[in-house]
C-alpha cells in the first residue's frame, strides 16, 4: 500500500473515533434519540475491510454502522445530521443511527434486526449474478447473528448457488451482554462455515493491516472462484453495547486489557516504526479530523428538521 493510502486509513480510523466521541456527547446532551451503538474499538475492522473493496462492491452491515458509513465515503456532516434526525442526513432523518446508507457509494445500510440483512445481502449477490457481473457483496454482522436462522439459510444458499458474498463476522466477543461461549455451540465462529463447505479464515481485528490483507485475499478468491467466503474478524468494543449499557457482564480489567490493544494506537505505532509518517504528520491528521468533526456538529445542529410533508414521502415509489 502506498504512503497516501496508509495515511488515509489512519485518517479514517481517527475520524470514526472522534465522530463517535462527539456523538456520545450529543447523545448525553439529549440531542440524539433512540438507540446508538458505538464502534469505538472496532475501527480497524471496517477500515481494513472497506479499503480492500472495489467501488463496485456492495457493503451492508448491522446497526453498529457509523464507522462503515464513514469508511464508504459518506461525509461526517451527513453522519452527524442523520444522528440528529435532520433532513440533511443521508436517510433524511428517517433512519437514524442504525439506518445509515448511501447507495450511490454502495453502502446499503445499517440494518437493525439482528441477522435480518444476511438474506438481503445474498439477494444483492443474486441480483449481481443475474446481471452476470462479478461484483462482491460484503456483508458484516456480529457474533450474535451467527446463532439465528437467517445466518444459516443465507450461508447455505450462498454456497449452493455460488453467490459472491464476503460474509464478515465481527466477533466482538459479546452479543449484547451474552458472551460467545454462552450463546454459540462453537467459540470459533468460522467453524460454522465448514458445515456449508465454505472457505473461511479468522484474523486479528485490532490490526488494520492484517484485516486489509485477509480481506484482499478473501475477495480475490470470491471474485475468481464465484464462491462465498466467511471471514471472522476478532475485535472488541470498548464502549457498552449501546448507550444505555450497565456492563454487568464483563470486568473492567478485561476492557482495560483490550484497550491496551487500541487499533488506532497499534496503527499509529506501525506508521512511526515503519517510518511511513512522522509524529508531526499524524498530529496534523488528528487536527484535521478535529476540525472536520467540529464542522460536522455545526452542520448537523444548524441543518433543518424534516418537514411534515416528509412524513408521507418515500413510502411507495409508485403513486
Amino acid at each position, binding site marked *: 500500500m502506498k504512503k497516501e493510502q496508509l495515511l488515509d486509513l489512519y485518517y479514517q480510523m481517527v475520524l470514526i473515533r472522534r465522530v463517535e466521541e462527539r456523538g456520545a456527547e450529543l447523545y448525553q446532551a439529549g440531542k440524539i434519540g433512540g438507540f446508538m451503538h458505538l464502534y469505538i474499538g472496532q475501527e480497524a475492522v471496517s477500515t481494513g475491510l472497506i479499503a480492500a473493496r472495489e467501488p463496485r462492491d*456492495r457493503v451492508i452491515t448491522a446497526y453498529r454502522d457509523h464507522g462503515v458509513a464513514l469508511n464508504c465515503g459518506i461525509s461526517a456532516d451527513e453522519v452527524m445530521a442523520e444522528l440528529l434526525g435532520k433532513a440533511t*442526513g*443521508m*436517510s*433524511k*432523518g*428517517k*433512519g437514524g443511527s442504525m*439506518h445509515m*446508507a*448511501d*447507495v*450511490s457509494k454502495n453502502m*446499503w*445500510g*445499517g440494518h437493525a*434486526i439482528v441477522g*435480518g440483512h*444476511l*438474506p*438481503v*445481502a*445474498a*439477494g*444483492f*449477490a*443474486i*441480483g*449481481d449474478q*443475474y*446481471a452476470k457481473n462479478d461484483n462482491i457483496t460484503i456483508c458484516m454482522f456480529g457474533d450474535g447473528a451467527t446463532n439465528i*436462522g*437467517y445466518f444459516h*439459510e*443465507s450461508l*447455505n*444458499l450462498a454456497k*449452493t448457488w455460488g453467490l459472491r458474498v464476503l460474509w464478515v463476522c465481527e466477533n466482538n466477543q459479546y452479543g449484547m451482554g451474552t458472551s460467545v461461549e454462552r450463546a454459540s455451540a462453537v467459540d470459533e465462529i468460522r467453524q460454522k462455515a465448514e458445515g456449508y463447505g465454505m472457505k473461511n479464515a479468522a484474523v486479528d481485528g485490532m490490526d488494520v493491516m492484517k484485516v486489509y490483507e485477509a480481506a484482499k485475499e478473501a475477495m480475490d478468491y470470491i471474485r475468481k472462484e464465484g464462491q462465498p467466503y466467511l471471514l471472522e474478524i476478532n475485535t472488541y468494543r470498548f464502549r457498552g453495547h449501546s448507550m444505555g449499557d450497565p456492563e454487568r457482564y464483563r470486568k473492567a480489567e478485561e476492557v482495560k486489557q483490550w484497550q491496551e490493544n487500541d487499533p488506532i494506537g497499534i496503527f499509529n505505532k506501525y506508521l512511526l516504526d515503519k517510518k511511513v509518517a512522522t509524529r508531526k504528520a499524524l498530529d496534523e491528521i488528528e487536527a484535521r479530523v478535529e476540525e472536520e468533526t467540529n464542522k460536522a456538529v455545526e452542520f448537523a445542529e444548524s441543518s433543518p428538521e424534516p418537514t411534515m410533508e416528509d412524513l408521507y*414521502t*418515500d*413510502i*411507495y*415509489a*409508485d403513486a
Partner: protein
Amino acid sequence: MAKITMREAISQALMEEMDRDPAVFIMGEEVGVWGGTYAVTKGFYDKYGPDRVKDTPIAENAILGGAIGAAMVGQRPIAELMTINFAFSAMDYIVNQAAKLRYMFGGQFMLPLVIRAVGGGGRQLGATHSQTPDAIFAHFPGLKVVSPGTPEDAKGLLKSAIRSNDPILFIEHATMYQVRGEVPEGEYTIPIGKSKVQREGKDLTIVTYCKGLELSMKAAEQLSKEGIEAEIVDLRTLRPLDMEPVLESFKKTNRAIVVEEGWKSYGVGSEIVSRIYEEAFDYVDAPIIRVAQKEVPLPYNRTLEQAALPQVADIVNAAKEVLK
C-alpha cells in the same frame, strides 16, 4: 373474449411479463423442475431455464430476503411462497424489510418485488395450511396487498404488480385455480388499488374479494330469484384500499354486508364497516353484517371444515337479515 381458468390467467401474466422484461425472474420452492405445486409455472423451466426460474431450498427467509436484495439492486424478482402460511416463517421480510426499507433509507432505492402466495381453506389441509390471513398483511404501510377474484383481474393485476416499483403481496386462493372466466384478448393491465362493481343491484351492497366474490356471486343469483338484487363491490386490492365504489354503492342501497374468508375478529370486514360508519354514517339504514370464518383453527374433517368456512347460505341469510 376467451374463457380461461385462473391458473391459465396467472400463468399467462407471468409469461407475458417475463417475455417483455428480462429483469423479471421467478424464485421459490418447486417453481422450476416440478412446475409449481399448483402447476402455475408448468413449462417455465424448459422455456426460460434455471437462471430465470430458480428452484430454492426450503428456506423462506432466504427466498424473500434474497428477492428483496435482488429487487433493491435493480432486478424484478417474483418470489413464490408455496402457501401464505409459510409467510409466517419469513414475516421479518414482509413486515420489517419489504414494507420499510425504502422509507427508512429516505427513498434511496425502489423495491420492485412481487410475492405470490397461495392462501385459503377448503382443501382439508389442516389448521396450519388453510389460513386466510390477508388482513394481517394489509395492516402494514409500505406494502401493497392484492387478491383477485376473477381470471380477468388476476391476469391484469398480476401484470401491473410485476411492473410496479413497490413490494406487492399477491394472494391467490387454493380452491380457485380451476375457476373459469372471460379474459380480454391480447395485452391489458388492471390498475392496483381500484375496487370494482362486479354485479349491479339496488337492494343491498355486498363488499368482498377473492373467494368471497365467488361465493357472493352465487348468493346474489339465489337472492335474485327471490326478487332481491345485490350489488357486489370487489375490493381486489386490500392496501391501498379504494373505498369510493363501496361508498357510492352504499349511498345508493343504504344496507351492506361484508364477506371474507378470514376470521371475523380484526378482519377486512372490520375495516370496511368502520370506514362506512366513518364516511357514510348518515346513509346507514341497518347494522352492517360481517360474514366470515368461525373463530376456530380450521379442522381437517371435511364437514367440520366446511362448517367453519363462510358458505353461500350464510351470505343469503345475512342479506335477508340486513334487509329486515
